[in-house]
């Protein structure tokens, strides 16, 4: 008897995910209106971003290249999407200062996107033909072949600043420790919790977990982008209140809220 074909149009067990997404959308819309009306929103400074600007400035002074690594995530890793935005800002600063940057990529689709973003940055900086064609290049979609090639660049071309933004896995320590050996200033931002200890130990500054996403929104200083950070904060506050409320209700013998949150 073949599996009964499912024909209903809504999966009730996922109501909580739907509520979560709709709630987040409302927070987003409210904050976009707030941001538009007030012109800007207060977002606490992210020291990692000021360190990033200093690193680019220092590399330019020393006349040495900047190495930007977008991480080993493909597009399914949202850390990669954040890295694309940050790279756009770094490329724009590099174009304005006339220094040089190299972006070795792990994922071919990310390479294609980043090449477009870099060209756009040079175009917006008014120097479209100064974009060195090979600067954004595909290296390898195999984790340690990528590491071998990139550490080779670090040791032989001695970039002054190594920037790690995106999803990194076990190779984070290999890259950061080799970068430390060459004396480069190193700024990292990673959403993979397991790799944060290594970046914290080997880099000069590390954006922890969701600070990477906040940085990608903060970087444009556009009100709408800041609104997404505020929405993230409101959702975090809601999550905290939800947990405490559910625990209190549970203590008073009313587990409904807890059950509603159960996913499986």
């Amino acid at each position, binding site marked *: 008897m073949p599996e009964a074909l499912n024909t209903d149009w809504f999966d009730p067990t996922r109501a909580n995910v739907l509520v979560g997404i709709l709630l987040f959308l409302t927070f987003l819309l409210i904050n976009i209106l707030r941001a538009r009306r007030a012109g800007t929103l207060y977002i606490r400074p992210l020291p990692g971003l000021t360190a990033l600007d200093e690193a680019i400035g220092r590399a330019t002074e020393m006349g040495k290249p900047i190495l930007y690594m977008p991480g080993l995530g493909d597009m399914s890793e949202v850390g990669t999407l954040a890295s694309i935005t940050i790279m756009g800002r770094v490329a724009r600063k590099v174009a304005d200062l006339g220094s040089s940057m190299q972006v070795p990529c792990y994922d071919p689709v990310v390479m294609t996107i980043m090449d477009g973003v870099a060209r756009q940055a040079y175009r917006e900086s008014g120097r479209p033909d100064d974009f060195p064609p090979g600067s954004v290049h595909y290296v390898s979609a195999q984790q340690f072949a990528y590491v071998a090639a990139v550490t080779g660049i670090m040791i032989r071309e001695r970039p002054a600043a190594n920037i790690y933004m995106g999803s990194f896995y076990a190779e984070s320590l290999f890259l950061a420790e080799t970068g430390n050996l060459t004396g480069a200033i190193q700024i990292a931002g990673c959403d993979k919790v397991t790799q944060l200890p290594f970046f914290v130990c080997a880099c000069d500054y590390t954006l922890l977990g969701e600070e990477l996403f906040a940085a990608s929104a903060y970087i444009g200083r556009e009100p709408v982008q800041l609104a*997404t950070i505020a929405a993230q904060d409101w959702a975090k506050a809601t999550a905290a209140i939800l947990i405490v409320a559910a625990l209190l209700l549970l203590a008073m013998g009313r587990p409904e809220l807890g059950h509603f949150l159960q996913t499986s």
Partner: protein
Amino acid sequence: MYLGPVLVTFAVGAALIVLFFVPHHQAQAVNAEILEWATIVYAFALILGSISLWNTHARKVRHRIEGWPYSLVTMITLVAVTGLGVVFGTAEGTAVYAIYQSVNSPLASTMFALLAFFIASAAFRAFRARNLEATLLLVTAVLMMIGRVSIGEFIWPGFPAFTEWLLDVPNLAAKRAIAIGVGLGAVSTGLKIILGIERSYLGRSN
């Protein structure tokens, strides 16, 4: 303005969000078909990537840039392995399978093994009790290291249980908070792109 592509991203992104909530078998078939298309696009992107790799090394060889003989090695290996793999396949018994066993596999695992050396040098250099936070970091790390191996058990039978506690309480709490934060950051980033607030991936670094 790239209105066309932005609308495509909105349509596809919204469709996949909706299909998540619709268990209807036809809806799920559409869902699976869209995902299948993505894997096909990735395969073509890999070809584009390999051309970029080829250009990087060909440029070095053409201009005789320092280290160009090594680039020749990469170019020759790339063509050889791709050609053999496409023509004869990659299953056991093929040339590519043998190359994989004697080149790719040992190189990958040995590169990974170097991390054992780097983790020691990083620990020695970075774990310095300069402030309260750094001290917490290094004390926990050392206790975790000793408690996880047989010698730790020998020193204090309660060591493994203590390392389990470290993982079950403080580590769990911090990791769960980070997971919730990263999860919300990911949802925010995903929605930003689907709603067209974020378009830099289209080459508009606005």
